């Protein structure tokens, strides 16, 4: 049964996931080509100094990529369910309504986590060629909220898309914008370290909000 759910969800999102992976790889290639270029033509010592003491970053291009990926995957996964209220077909399957929504959502989230871990893993591996760990670690701390923001975007867009009443969608969108902005606040490198547990907790809690839209749909809100 879960295999069937994965099968359908994968059909919906596979193209977007592959495009997202391709774009992420291009972004990483761009980052490391630029790093290599700067090390060759600037001077490695000065280059490292700018990251260690001036708060410069070499990975700014990645900032809004998780947001765009989370948004695209949520749209690819949930718009097909809302067209002609096809979610009725999904809720009619012989699984509890919350159960099937949780499974669909868990699959989408798992794909995103995998994709983001791959990107972060490749980023770490690529960075290790050029930089010491005291540049890489703060860099990972800096970009972790961006990836959490991508997850939060996915969860909140799912909530908005499955909500049956347009005016509520608008209200949710305003609230969602507020939440997502939290993850993309500009700060000096590594500054988000103390609040990472709180951001992780918020992201985990947001993963359940889609159940509310599912509940409202089943009760016949329109």
């Amino acid at each position, binding site marked *: 049964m879960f295999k*069937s759910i994965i099968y359908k969800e994968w059909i919906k999102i596979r193209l977007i996931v592959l495009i997202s992976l391709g774009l992420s790889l291009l972004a990483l290639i761009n980052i490391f080509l630029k790093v290599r270029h700067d090390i060759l033509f600037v001077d490695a010592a000065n280059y490292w100094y700018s990251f260690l003491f001036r708060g410069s970053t070499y990975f700014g291009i990645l900032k809004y990529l998780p947001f765009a990926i989370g948004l695209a995957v949520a749209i690819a996964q949930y718009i097909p369910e809302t067209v002609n*209220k096809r979610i009725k077909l999904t809720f009619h399957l*012989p699984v509890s309504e919350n159960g099937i929504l949780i499974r669909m959502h868990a699959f989408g989230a798992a794909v995103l986590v995998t994709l983001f871990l791959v990107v972060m893993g490749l980023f770490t591996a690529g960075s290790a060629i050029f930089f010491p760990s005291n540049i890489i670690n703060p860099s990972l701390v800096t970009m972790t909220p961006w990836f959490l923001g991508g997850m939060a975007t996915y969860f909140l867009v799912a909530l908005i898309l499955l909500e049956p009443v347009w005016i509520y969608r608008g209200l949710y969108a305003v609230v969602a914008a507020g939440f997502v902005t939290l993850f993309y606040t500009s700060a000096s490198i590594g500054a988000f370290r103390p609040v990472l547990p709180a951001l992780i907790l918020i992201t985990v809690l947001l993963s359940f909000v889609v159940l509310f839209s599912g509940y409202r749909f089943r009760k016949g809100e329109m």
Partner: protein
Amino acid sequence: MYAIECKNLTHYYGKKMVYENLSFNVEEGKILGLLGKNGTGKSTTINILNGFLQPCAGECLIYGENTQLLTPETKRRIGFLIEGHVQYTFMNIHQIEKFYSGFYEGWNSAPYWELMSKLKVTPKQKISSMSCGQRSQVALGLILAQNPDLLILDDFSMGLDPGYRRLFIDYMREYAKAEHKTVFVTSHIIQDMERLIDDVMIMDYNKILAQQPIGQFMNTFRQFNISLADHNAAVDLDGIAVNIERVKDKIEFYTYSTEEDVKGYLKMKGIGYNSFEEVKMSLEDAFIGLTRKY
């Protein structure tokens, strides 16, 4: 034994009442057609039956379970055709069959592939690029493969040409009778229903006008065309008439009474006529006669 029992359903959209204290049952093994004009509550009833709408009061039971709290086991026994043959159109016919088969232990793909073999579609053609008629066959094939005990078909004829409508009806009738299935069906095209249903339920605003076997309804509900002798004679609904449609001296008199009773009624009222004839009605005629033209 009833497959569906609805008790004292009351529903409002805001302040607009759809119906109040509506009750009906559907016997197992019967094909019941729900007829009604737009806005009389057909879709509301279907949504309540499928658990997509909570009524303001009352409840519907399917196989003894409240439709708001259907267990997966009971849902497995219900086949649901959404208005417009809605399906996952981003899949092709192989993908959608593979997807659904994972949910139903008794899945029997033979009738699905039998229907698909009649469609002129390529194996990888997405359902979104199929005609409405072809999509209806995909939806029907999936329901037949699911092999449910109860089929809920919401406006199955929408968008279908006469050939596909006939194919759908003939398949459904034969299948339901051979397999002792219960069917709850709505359709805008009432002439289709005559070939398909055992029982008819006709809804009007806020109430049920008729619920009985289709044969009994068609035999007892009658139309008489009467040409009045006096253009100004008053013929009203206070007696045996269910509905009267009048154009000058010509009236269409709809009633459950016999010809003798109607003639006796006119005589009692002192209403003379030049001609009086009983008209054989189709189900559509009877529906309009009962619910009025507007």
